[in-house]
């Protein structure tokens, strides 16, 4: 095994990830993550000897995808699983190439944290690693080149130089600023079916305040309470009073989540905010088909 400096190792890891389908790869400043994440959710809480946090993004929807009805949107990409696949391979790659223990960060809920609490914030890793910036659409990360991506993280004991967060936030796009100045709302705010988005844009066209009613959003998109609620409603009032509410206790709800996420039908995004987002749909390389053509053109030029 050849000793290698951090920059060279990072270049090889980035190359590996991109070859496997990642659009953007960055390394987050670990100390920043440790300061920002709450206790129990810092990288070191999961992997005590972590030295670097690698974040990668995959994704993109074809232009056709955005024409689908909302009920089908969530199933058209399966991009998150592709992100997880790249990160999983990346962890093996680092261990094999550099001998440093690494782990693909499970993108799952924390069984100790209760419902709706992840083991780690993949979003925070990506933002600090400079491959996404928070949008007015409920803090969904957007990238100026790739638009809307799914993220995955790798923790490793290999020390890698970190990247800076994005210098500019692509949200709100100029057309959204114009709309906000005209009607007081950006497209994502206007077309959110749960009306869970709100916010303000300052005089410079930048985000001033982002307000997100996650409870309202979750009612639409994460109905893993539905099954136990249906069961609880199915039993009589007497049975409910004597403990059927236990179907909804935190531990059991975690199991419902697992069941629901597996079935897909109860756990999805509505995507309406992204459908109307010019960055998500029209960023220069948001469309995988255009991206592919761009890549082929680049290869030909290089050849």
């Amino acid at each position, binding site marked *: 095994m050849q000793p290698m400096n951090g920059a060279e190792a990072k270049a090889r890891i980035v190359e590996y990830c991109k070859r496997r389908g990642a659009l953007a790869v960055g390394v987050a400043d670990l100390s920043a993550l440790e300061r920002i994440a709450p206790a129990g959710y810092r990288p070191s809480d999961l992997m005590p000897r972590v030295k670097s946090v690698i974040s990668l993004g995959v994704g993109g929807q074809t232009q056709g995808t955005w024409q689908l009805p909302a009920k089908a949107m969530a199933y058209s990409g399966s991009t998150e699983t592709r992100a997880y696949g790249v990160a999983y391979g990346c962890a093996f790659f680092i261990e094999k190439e550099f001998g440093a223990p690494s782990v693909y960060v499970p993108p799952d809920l924390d069984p100790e944290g*209760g419902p709706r609490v992840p083991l780690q914030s993949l979003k925070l890793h990506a933002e600090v690693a400079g491959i996404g910036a928070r949008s007015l659409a409920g803090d969904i990360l957007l990238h100026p080149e790739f638009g809307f991506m799914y993220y995955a993280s790798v923790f490793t004991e290999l020390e890698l130089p970190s990247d800076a967060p994005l210098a500019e936030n692509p949200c709100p796009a100029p057309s959204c600023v114009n709309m906000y100045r005209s009607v007081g709302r950006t497209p994502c705010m206007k077309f959110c*079916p749960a009306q869970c988005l709100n916010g303000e844009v300052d005089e410079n066209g930048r985000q001033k305040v982002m*307000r*997100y009613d996650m409870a309202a959003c*979750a009612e639409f998109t994460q109905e893993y309470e539905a099954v136990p609620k249906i069961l609880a409603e199915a039993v009589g009032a007497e049975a409910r009073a004597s403990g059927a509410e236990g179907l909804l206790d935190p531990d059991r709800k975690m199991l419902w989540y697992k069941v629901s996420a597996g079935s897909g039908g109860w756990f999805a995004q509505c995507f309406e905010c992204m459908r109307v987002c010019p960055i998500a749909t029209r960023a220069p390389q948001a469309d995988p088909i255009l991206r592919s053509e761009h890549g082929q053109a680049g290869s030909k030029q290089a050849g």
Partner: protein
Amino acid sequence: MARGLTREQLGITESMVAAFGPTIFRMSHNLQVRTGDPVRLLEFEEIERQREDMGLSDGEIAVRLGLTRGQVMFIRNLEESRRFKTGRQAYLLDLGGGRRFRHEKVTPLENRFRYSEDALRLRAALSFRPELVERYVAAGYWRDETLSGWIAQHATTRPDAPALSAGSETLGYRGLHEHSLRLAAGLERAGVRRGEAVAVQLPNTPEFVVTYLALCRLGAVTCPVHMPYRAADIESILSHSRAVAFVGLSGAAEWSPAAACLEMRGRLARLQTVIALGAPVAGAQSWQELAASAPLDEREVAMPVGSDPFVLLYTSGTTAAPKGVPHSYHTLLSNARLGAPEHRVTGKDLLLSAAPFTHLFGLYSLHIAWAAGAAAALLPAFTPAALAEAVQRLRPTGLWTAPAHVAALRAQGLLDNHDFSSLRLVIMSGSACPPDLVCWFADKLPACRVTQLWGMTETQGALYTRPGDAIEVASSSAGRPSPGTEVRVVDPAGNRCGPGVEGELQVCGPLLFPGFLDNPEANRATFTEDGWYRTGDLASQDSTANVRITGRTKDVINRGGVKFNPRDVEDLIDSHPKVLQSAIVPMPDPILGERACCFVTLRPGAATLELDELVAYLLDKKITKTKLPEKLVVLKEMPLTPTRKVIKGRLVVTS
């Protein structure tokens, strides 16, 4: 449990949940507010300052509130479960694919249309046997079709073809469709909703037709009320049908139906709206104003479907109190669609009904006309002279009529001085047709095929002779079953009778109503165990499947143990030169149990008729002596149903 610990192990009480729940919900990730872009800019102090606004972890909340992390998780989870509504994903079904969310246009799920309890009661009455449904659908009898759908289809494919002819005014399908959409919008504004019953008492006018179609379009259930009905009859129907609205005339002869119904509202909780056609009636909505509404936005109100309730009719009650007969689009429209070619009705025909549209035979003329894309001509109210004048003026090709109508035409000699030459099809129905009347009519109209139809409120057109049948068949029988209809004639033990043997007529098929509304006793009495409908009519079927209706089971007279059906005798009496119409009913007798009593009305010019004279006439016709009437009552007017059937229940024998 939380982290494996139970509520008791965590020390959670309901008062603790109530006290801390809202605060924990707010402090957690459920509501997030971010100012500026502090994480991207790594502004750590600002991140700290905004930490609570951005949403705290359970551990952070625990520290702030002085609870354990487990308690916070448990309470947060409970609060979320209690607050979060399930089923919200249903909104997604209305989104995307070019459909954009508009907050102002979205109706919350809980506020969306739901059938009322009364509407569900009506829907529940459409209780068909599953094996029959499967058979009717597989055979193509039942389709997803509605009357308003038919009109909309014609309005698209042949918009200017005539749909309705009323005197000087002819309305094309497009015009009729638009009129119905306008009134539908008005009715919807007036509170009429899908599945609700709406009583309609109007003559055979364009207003009736437009009302009928508008109610169909809304998915409401038309409940026709016969024109002769007065307040007590109407209240009985409104009460039983639980109608939410009444549509009627502002003023009829000597009374105001609309005003009478307004007065009933205090007693009928369901009756919300009275709609008056004609002069304004205080407290009632104006039909004319509702009909002048902008057309219904068809995207806003779902179209009914074939299985929906369509009309709720009340039986004409020749023997008993009215009973509610619900029909779906399936039963009535399949019967009409399959029947139109049997009657040889085409899109070029113009059909005139002498029967009121408040009766199913009258509605059948509309259904047949629109099944074929033909037009319906309107006769607002029957009188012999009005019918003759309408045929001469409107020149219909088809006439829906009852024997009593034809008898009246004959009695007044109206065929001799009016032009009936446009007719090529006559359908006579409503009561038993005297053969000589059919023959007389056929002789008068040599270019026209005179046919008979037998049906009931419960069946619409079940039997009919076809235009190609010989007059001997058309005059002596009610014909053969309509397509899909099955009939059988059975003896009192339930065994099928052989050809020519009299028994009770029973019916089954895609045309058959599912059962009386809210009347399990009547349903038990009128349906056999294998689902056939006991019509109560006596009949015999010949070897060619033609059925001859011979009377009513309840009309049978038991004279000292010798039972006989008085229908034959009535036919003979009807042929007496002085008799206009006759009806024989049993009169109690202490010795024989029952004897026959004959009620008659006389033809114009006939002054009197004595029992001896009638008996002599009948004996001359070789009638069995035991069938002779033993009492004669001459009436000025026979009690008739709106379709001119004798109401024998009102023929009371007095000493």
